[in-house]
């Protein structure tokens, strides 16, 4: 499920070396490769497209400035995600409650997803919800979580990362990742009980 294997980290190292050697086009390749994943991480944390765009620019700019210090002890994948998580959490701390959701429209493929069909056409036909209604409720439930819980839910449930990868990026133990997930799922269950699978 994770994209790390698909992204070929060995090739990343070559691109990193070329960037460190002064080839900016190599860094462009890394931006093309990682911007969709990093976008997803930041977007699901902020629930705001414009904030995500600005943060994503800052994340890649910071990575570009600091790439000379990148020694390859972790993969570029882990490194760029760590930068993104730290910058996003700092941003959220500053933003605090001044949040105005700016959500992207869900891809039309969602309508054919069995999970979506199961969630929206519940056993009780009077409780049928639209795609946008579901999106709003999911977003509201996510925003109720603390930053620490939201980041593990985003990485594990939405982006499909391993526990070990999450632990490495957040610099916490796998046990902590699991306990945070467990607690976050319990909170989400309270908010989204109507969509719970039968």
């Amino acid at each position, binding site marked *: *499920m*994770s994209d790390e294997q698909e992204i070929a980290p060995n090739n990343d190292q070559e691109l990193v070396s070329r960037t460190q050697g002064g080839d*900016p086009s190599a860094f*462009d390749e890394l*931006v*093309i490769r990682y*911007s*969709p994943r990093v*976008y*997803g991480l930041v*977007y*699901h944390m902020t629930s705001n*497209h414009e904030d995500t*765009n600005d943060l*994503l*620019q800052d994340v*890649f*700019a910071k990575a*570009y400035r600091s790439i000379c210090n990148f020694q390859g002890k972790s993969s570029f994948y882990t490194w760029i995600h760590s930068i993104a998580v730290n910058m996003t959490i700092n941003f959220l701390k500053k933003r605090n409650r001044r949040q105005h959701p700016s*959500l*992207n*429209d*869900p*891809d039309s*493929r*969602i309508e054919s*997803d069995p*999970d*979506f069909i*199961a*969630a929206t056409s519940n056993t009780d036909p009077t409780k049928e919800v639209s795609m946008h209604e*579901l*999106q709003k409720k*999911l*977003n509201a439930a*996510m925003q109720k979580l603390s930053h620490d819980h939201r980041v593990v*839910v985003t990485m594990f*449930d*939405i*982006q*499909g*990362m*391993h526990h070990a990868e999450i632990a490495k990026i957040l610099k916490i133990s796998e046990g902590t990742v699991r306990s945070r*997930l467990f607690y976050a*799922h319990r909170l*989400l*269950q309270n908010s*989204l009980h109507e*969509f*719970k*699978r039968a």
Partner: protein
Amino acid sequence: MNTEQYTREEDKEPMHHVIRLKRYEQPHEGYFEEFLREFQFRQRAELLKPSLSAMLMERLHSLVSEIRVPAMAYAGAAVLAIIAGTAIIRQEPQATSPRSYAASYSQTPVTIEKMQPVSLRIDTPPNASQHASQQFPPAFLLQARPATHESPLSF
């Protein structure tokens, strides 16, 4: 994480199926190409943006050039500075040993090799004493006697 493992996790957590629907929320088509172009544009703009020190140096340079002091004046001032500096460096110190400003009270004693008796007698004409006794009472008249350095015990 392989598919089997992932499926087991899914089965354990019912909310996972609902939450993962958020992955369909994607930016509009072509967003990531635009993002890269914007990133490249910002990077170039940052490179062109002069640093604070470079701006200060530029301001200083323009300020100096505005003063319009002739080049010969700079050269003259430089020569004067070099001459003054050389003169100061070449100036030898007056004394190598540390100077003492303490007052000295050593003084050679004054010696009188041979003491001569000094006569304080005033020779007066004979009629002058008579004249003096007429002017002053006798108690105020000193007897003329030679002064010596004899001990007062000799009296």
